[in-house]
């Protein structure tokens, strides 16, 4: 992939970020003329964390999605379909409502632990180089289990408002987060993406087959462990702050691989950029859509992403069919 393509993607992300900060323009413009201090406050305290979270979460989902697809050798693997986000949500809910630890740090740790558990369980259930059906069924089972346990945890929570309280967060939301909260997602996600980047040559070599990659000299067992841990950290930290947002981790790598000639590892960086642009755009759409109220962003990505997933499944069935 050429440097020009990467630059174009970076430009796209910068544009989406700038639009996310600036739109809707009329209110900002009006405020800046009336009260510049308040306007600056609005930009820094409200819009900046939101845009940063969209950027971070999208990039983490894209990069981790690409890495997970590479280790499972399957384009349908992604953090949400494999139960990773559900596991992270379960971890965060247990931490917040049963252990009653509400600090962002505790939530992040709980979330990352839940995500690690879910991804580890998936690897144990479906094995490496999973068949699509095994992978999806195991992921479905883990998602269902984590979802049920999340509901159970909320039902057992001492707080009577737990359900109502957790609802919006579980749907995935970037609204009303502080800059400090954004940092709690940004730092682990950035570390995870940078460390995943170091695995690019090993993940690319997996396209030759696991045995070839090992003969070349890559310790694939260790690579797999890295990807599981880093995905849990990157996605888990974002889920702790913003709840579960689906499908970006599935869609972004598919587009990214078109730019890398289907090299699975090299797709990590473009997938991060595409994921960031997608989530910034989705957030912009839910904020500016003339519906009279703001939709949870998780709903928007699911409404747009689920048809894409269906297309991917039928496309693969057609391709793999007799």
């Amino acid at each position: 992939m050429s440097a020009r393509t990467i630059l174009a993607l970076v430009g796209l992300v910068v544009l989406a970020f700038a639009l996310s900060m600036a739109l809707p323009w009329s209110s900002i413009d009006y405020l800046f003329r009336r009260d510049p201090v308040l306007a600056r406050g609005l930009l820094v305290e409200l819009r900046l964390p939101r845009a940063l979270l969209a950027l971070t979460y999208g990039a983490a989902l894209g990069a981790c999605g690409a890495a997970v697809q590479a280790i499972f050798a399957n384009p349908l693997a992604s953090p949400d379909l494999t139960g990773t986000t559900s596991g992270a949500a379960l971890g965060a809910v247990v931490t917040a409502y049963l252990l009653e630890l509400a600090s962002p740090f505790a939530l992040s740790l709980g979330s990352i632990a839940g995500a690690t558990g879910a991804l580890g369980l998936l690897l144990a259930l479906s094995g490496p180089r999973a068949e699509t059906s095994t992978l999806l069924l195991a992921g479905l089972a883990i998602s269902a289990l984590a979802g049920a346990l999340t509901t159970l945890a909320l039902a057992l929570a001492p707080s009577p408002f737990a359900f109502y309280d957790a609802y919006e967060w579980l749907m995935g939301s970037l609204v009303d987060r502080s800059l400090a909260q954004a940092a709690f997602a940004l730092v682990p996600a950035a570390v995870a993406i940078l460390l995943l980047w170091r695995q690019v040559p090993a993940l690319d070599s997996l396209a030759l087959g696991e045995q070839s990659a090992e003969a070349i000299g890559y310790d694939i067992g260790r690579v797999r462990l890295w990807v599981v841990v880093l995905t849990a950290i990157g996605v888990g930290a974002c889920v702790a702050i913003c709840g579960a947002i689906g499908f970006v981790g599935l869609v972004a790598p598919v587009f990214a691989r078109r730019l890398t000639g289907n090299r699975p590892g090299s797709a990590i960086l473009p997938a991060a950029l595409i994921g960031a642009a997608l989530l910034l755009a989705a957030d912009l759409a839910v904020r500016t859509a003339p519906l009279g109220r703001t939709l949870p962003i998780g709903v928007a990505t699911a409404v747009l992403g689920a048809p894409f997933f269906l297309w991917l499944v039928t496309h693969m069935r057609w391709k793999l069919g007799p």
Partner: protein
Amino acid sequence: MSPLVTAQDLAIAGRLEPSSLELRAGELVGLVGPNGSGKTSLLHALAGIPPSTGNVRIAGQITKGMHPDHRQRLFTFLPASRDVVWPLKARDLISLALPRGADWAKVAERLDIGALLDRRMDRLSTGERSRVMIARALAPDPRLLLLDEPIANLDPLWQLLLLDELRRLAHDEDKALLVAIHDLRAAAEWSDRLILMSERQIRADAAPSALVASGLIEKVFGVELAGADLRLRLADRQSSP
């Protein structure tokens, strides 16, 4: 002449009993044995693919933990599977994880894959994919080639062309080759030495003519190697080891 490759105590639990062998530069060694006799496992152990154990030295250097670029200059491995997961173009597949500066234009020419380079791997036939993957194994110009069934899936012409090329690599370019071959006749005809495996261990290691004369092939396979023809000898199957 000291051997290029020395391997000691190669083993994989349940698949390969502890085995040792030496390979010399300039020698094409055929690896034969019935299904499940441990040919693939021996190649895996030499290539250091987990969960194998043992020590492999190539040109005096221990291959375990070596940087991929350096390692591929010493040896490469062709797996038995010709499946590809991602629909890469043949050109992109060959350049995956290739050591810096590896020039594979001549390899592509010898395997006549020029016309396949810009096509996607999943749209090639199994035989065409085989040639591309063999080219990938040859591309780093390694000193040792470990090839698992390279002539499987190839048409008769390409089987001969490839065996000829492999022998040329051994004799003219002084490489060591260990090649698992299912076709006993081809193995006996093209190899400088044969390693015979059965029941997860090396049973014999000798020149093809000596091995044929020993009668061990007949014992292990239950077939008779007579001139250019292989005749099944079903009667001896019961007394096979």
